[in-house]
């Protein structure tokens, strides 16, 4: 009989394409990797509510206000699904939030950039969600069952996000001179950070090899980035936006676009905390977490009182 609690048996299951469930045996490294990745993903969704939230109260029409609210609500919901998926691995939401606040856990660098004009809402939906969805579609097949199921639901819900972003961009590019300028300005600021969302080349990513072996990650960073570039550049051109990269060429043979060098120094600088909004984003989360503590305590106290009364009534 094979030993079901061995790493080799675990790897055999992974290689057969089986999904791993919460109570199944898994190597400690697999569990840790997933906790790190899923909680980071959850934090990204939740912190990601802020740059878009910055425009809810200034959305220029009743339609756009509802769309934006519904979209940000989705991001919150996705954070929620992912926190719950991570909880199946034996970490509580309380701990995950504490790790976020003490900077032990990270969130996506992209949300450390500011949203400065209304077209940023378009650019975030189109470019940031567009980049995220390339990653997320790939993660639907990830080996951990609860993570995979959360991703399936998330991808289904995200499908309108990118379209609403592109719709805003298209509308503004068809609008007044001021609107066009806003759209191009947003494009200029979000293009490169969006490309950085796929992280550095895999050879420079510390966790890639295990993640591929365990089928947590199904495609390399560069493959995913290329997919995003290839589908996005024609979309930009269609509505008259200039991609802020003089080196772009279409390789006719492969059908892929080649881009200029990515400024990874900026990426590492922002990761280290020197992005325009790192402090602001985390401060916001910490502030409202503490502000709401008395409400959560009250809910618990009410539950306890009620339970006591029910026992007394029996």
């Amino acid at each position, binding site marked *: 009989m094979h030993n079901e609690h061995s790493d080799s048996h675990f790897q055999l299951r992974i290689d057969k394409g089986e999904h791993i469930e919460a109570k199944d045996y898994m190597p400690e490294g697999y569990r840790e990797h997933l906790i790190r990745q899923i909680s980071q993903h959850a934090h990204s969704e939740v912190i990601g509510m802020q740059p878009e*939230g910055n425009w809810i109260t200034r959305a220029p029409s*009743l339609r*756009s206000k*509802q769309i934006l*609210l519904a979209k940000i609500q989705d991001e*919150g919901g996705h954070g*929620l699904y992912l926190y719950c998926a991570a909880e199946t691995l034996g970490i509580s939401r309380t701990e995950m939030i504490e790790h976020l606040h003490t900077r032990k856990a990270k969130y996506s660098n992209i949300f450390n950039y500011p949203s400065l004009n209304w077209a940023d809402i378009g650019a975030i939906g189109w470019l940031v969600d567009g980049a995220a969805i390339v990653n997320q579609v790939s993660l639907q097949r990830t080996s951990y069952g609860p993570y995979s199921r959360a991703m399936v639901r998330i991808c289904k819900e995200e499908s309108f996000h990118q379209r609403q972003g592109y719709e805003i961009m298209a509308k503004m590019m068809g609008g*007044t001179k001021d609107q066009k300028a806003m759209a191009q300005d947003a494009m200029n600021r979000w293009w490169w950070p969006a490309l950085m969302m796929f992280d550095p080349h895999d050879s420079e990513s510390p966790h890639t090899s295990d993640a591929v072996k365990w089928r947590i990650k199904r495609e390399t960073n560069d493959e995913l980035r290329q997919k995003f570039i290839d589908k996005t550049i024609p979309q930009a051109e269609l509505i008259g936006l200039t991609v802020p990269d003089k080196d772009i060429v279409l390789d006719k043979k492969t059908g892929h676009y080649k881009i200029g060098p990515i400024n990874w120094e900026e990426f590492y600088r922002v990761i280290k905390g020197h992005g325009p909004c790192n402090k602001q984003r985390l401060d916001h989360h910490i502030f409202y977490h503490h502000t709401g503590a008395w*409400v959560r305590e009250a809910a618990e106290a*009410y539950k306890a009182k009620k339970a006591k009364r029910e026992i007394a009534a029996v």
Partner: protein
Amino acid sequence: MKATDNLYNYCLRLGDDALILGHRLSELCSKAPFIEEDLALTNISLDMIGRAQAILKYAAEVGGKNDTEDDLAYRRAEINYYNHLLVEQPNGDFAHTIARQLFLSAFEFYLYGEMEKCHDKTLAAIASKTLKEVRYHLEHASDWTIRLGDGTPESHHRMQNAINELWMYTGELFEMDEVEMTLMRDGIAVDLIPVKTQWYNRIKHVLAEATLVMPEDSYMQTGSRKGVHTEHLGHILAEMQYLQRAYPDAIW
């Protein structure tokens, strides 16, 4: 004054309540005590902005000036806004948010319950859709009032405080001026005298279960039926209308 002016005005009153409270709740996105509650508040906000859109669209139709619902939301000045003072009050702490919601949702629950039967087909249809949403808002706000009132000493104190502070804006909910009296005779506007009794009894019941004290009747603030507001509305509109005002030629 044209016969439709009263209906136009009545629609603005209803639509503006939904718009301004929907806006206030939207300010809370990413600021709720925990993520599930963030989603819940956004759902209420979306219900209200959706309702505002429907009612303002109808107001624009009745107004007959080729306005759209967005023109009414984004190009009207404070003095032409007719939402109740209650809904423009700041979110405050979570207890204030809940108290404001409790007061308004209870009012809307009985208001739209009656309006379902009104002679204006459009308003009746909007009312029956709204009633389903508002029933949920009322339940959500009542449950939280009870949890906070009967929770910790701190939450009890905060909840009582919020109820007391917002109480002076509740009298206005039941004011009926010439506009509403005329429309009521036509079978359109809702008679607010029975609504007030129902509202009062419901609030009393919820507060009792929450171990909270019903505030004593005191001076009630007034003004919104004539477009006279608290200072808060101007700031809401300055923010909400910014893009439409700054770029009047743009289509968004």
